[in-house]
């Protein structure tokens, strides 16, 4: 018996317990190699910080319009210039970051929660529940979420909460389908079979076996989801169904800019530029996460 222990020892050079061997750390190492993802992460964090402290830092109150300085180009007083009512564009953008974040995160959360619940239910329970939920997913997938959002906005109105629900509710199908496929893949796999053989309850299996292996893919889905919702919010405003002015939002600013683009182009540069850069950063972060947690790349 001793010979096998000795033999096993020679093959194995296992270092002491250290955090730098966990799959999470391996994932982070792969994420860091994706330079654009890191830059994206920096911008996204800035965007979040702006969202939180924005209103206190903003030089001007978004409601106050300086009638003497209507439609001025970028200047020391107004670094991003002013719009046709004299609002300082820089402050407007800072406020819009907050409103965009609140709605986008809220909507993504709503879609995510509904998606996870229904996805897990369909994946774990199977049978009719699975069939019904999957038909519902197909139904939601046939028409673009934006259409449902429009109808919901009419029903619920254009306040923060109604916009969160309007964009959030139609967005659940993607997350549900992803969770269901992940759960189904694992449920028939040997890892869950082995845990069941150990006598683990379904709750224990879901918590300790399924969840840790789902988090990665969910993170990627969320990272793609948030920019999607940002676009939906702006899209609603362009359509005239978004946040009602005077609450500043990227959609309204871009819509306003497009009306008098020929005269005052800077009205477009800053809001559209920052908005696009933010979307791009989210996508880079998502791309980096995919690289870090992609099943093809191993864990």
């Amino acid at each position, binding site marked *: 018996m001793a010979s096998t222990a000795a033999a096993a020892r020679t093959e194995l050079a296992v270092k002491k317990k250290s955090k730098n061997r966990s799959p999470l750390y391996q994932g982070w190492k792969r994420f860091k190699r994706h330079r654009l993802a890191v830059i994206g992460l920096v911008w996204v964090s800035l965007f979040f910080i702006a969202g939180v402290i924005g209103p206190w830092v903003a030089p001007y109150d978004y409601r106050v319009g300086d009638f003497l300085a209507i439609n001025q180009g970028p200047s020391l007083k107004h670094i991003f210039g002013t719009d046709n009512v004299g609002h300082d564009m820089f402050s407007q953008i800072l406020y819009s970051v907050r409103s965009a974040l609140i709605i986008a995160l809220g909507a993504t959360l709503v879609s995510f929660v509904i998606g996870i619940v229904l996805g897990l239910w369909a994946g774990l329970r199977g049978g009719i529940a699975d069939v019904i939920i999957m038909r519902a997913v197909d139904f939601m997938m046939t028409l673009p979420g934006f259409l449902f959002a429009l109808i919901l906005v009419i029903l619920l109105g254009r306040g923060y909460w109604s916009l969160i629900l309007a964009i959030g509710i139609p967005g659940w199908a993607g997350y549900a389908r992803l969770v269901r496929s992940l759960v189904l893949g694992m449920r028939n796999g040997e890892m869950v079979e082995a845990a069941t053989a150990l006598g683990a309850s379904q709750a224990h299996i879901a918590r300790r076996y399924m969840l840790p292996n789902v988090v990665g893919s969910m993170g990627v889905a969320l990272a793609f989801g948030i920019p999607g919702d940002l676009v939906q919010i702006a899209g609603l405003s*362009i359509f005239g169904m978004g946040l009602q002015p005077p609450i500043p939002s990227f959609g309204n600013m871009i819509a306003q800019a497009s009306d008098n683009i020929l005269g005052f182009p800077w009205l477009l540069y800053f809001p559209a530029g920052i908005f696009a850069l933010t979307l791009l950063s989210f996508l880079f972060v998502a791309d980096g996460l995919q690289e870090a947690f992609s099943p093809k790349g191993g864990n």
Partner: protein
Amino acid sequence: MAVARFIAKRLVQIIITLILVISASYIMMYYSPGGFMNSSIMATALAPLQGQNPVLYHQVMDQFESRYGLNLPLWQQILKYLWHEFSFDFGNSMQNPSLHISAQLKQTLPVSALLAFGSVVLSVVIGVPLGIIAALKRNTWIDYVVSTVSLAGQAIPAFVLAVIMVLLFGVVFQGILPVTGWGSWKEMVLPVICLAAGNVGVVARYMRGSLIETLRQDYIRTAKAKGVKYWPLVFKHGVKNSLTAMITVIGPQFAFTVMGTIWVEQIFAIPGLGQVMQSAFTSFDYPLAITSVFLLGSMIMLMNLLVDIVYALIDPRVKL
């Protein structure tokens, strides 16, 4: 033939989905606070008349309600309405009752369909080769550029790009391409480019991903062992297999693009379905809104059906 049976099954599914969508929208609008679907709008508009000449007021109201069948019980209203929708008799717009909806949509639907279809075709025609090049030249600067550009394309929404286009071709390069209106093919160029920008990225990234994955498969090594030359290997074995994965992306992309047309039409002032829908929704004109949802939905679902059939033709493992 299996394909015919498959199409019939799918058409039934589409019809059921449409019925559900329209009934759901109808019910939602009926109970929506804006008095959207009952005659309250007309009642408020005619309130002064009620005071002066109640008889005339009631006559107009009855005539209005019967015209739109508002006095029937709800489920009957829905059935009647569904019957009209599916027989393409869309009735009249509520906002300006004289205007016949189907006439209005006859000119606008083809415009949006053309824009959406054009942009999907463009994104495939450009996206697929880009994806192939990026996959073959993996981890070189070409791959880096294509991946970054396609991500950027995805990041800039159609409406932002549209405004930039208006600025560029309206101010800087004035006169080369018309920035508003609709008529010859010239007006189509800019909007289609704006719509396709996002899609090209998605198509290219998917194509790149699935081709890289396919070229790692064992049957590619078998083809090499047969002495198959480089390009036939890449196309006959590599691309053919990865097309199936890529096609599944086209369906949802078409739905996404159709939404894009609404915004782009507004910025480029193109008389498409988007414009009609926008005014219908903002002014609570329910017949026009529901009909546009009906048309848009069927257009997207028919496109998805087309994608599934093409997928089944390419991949023999898929039994219809």
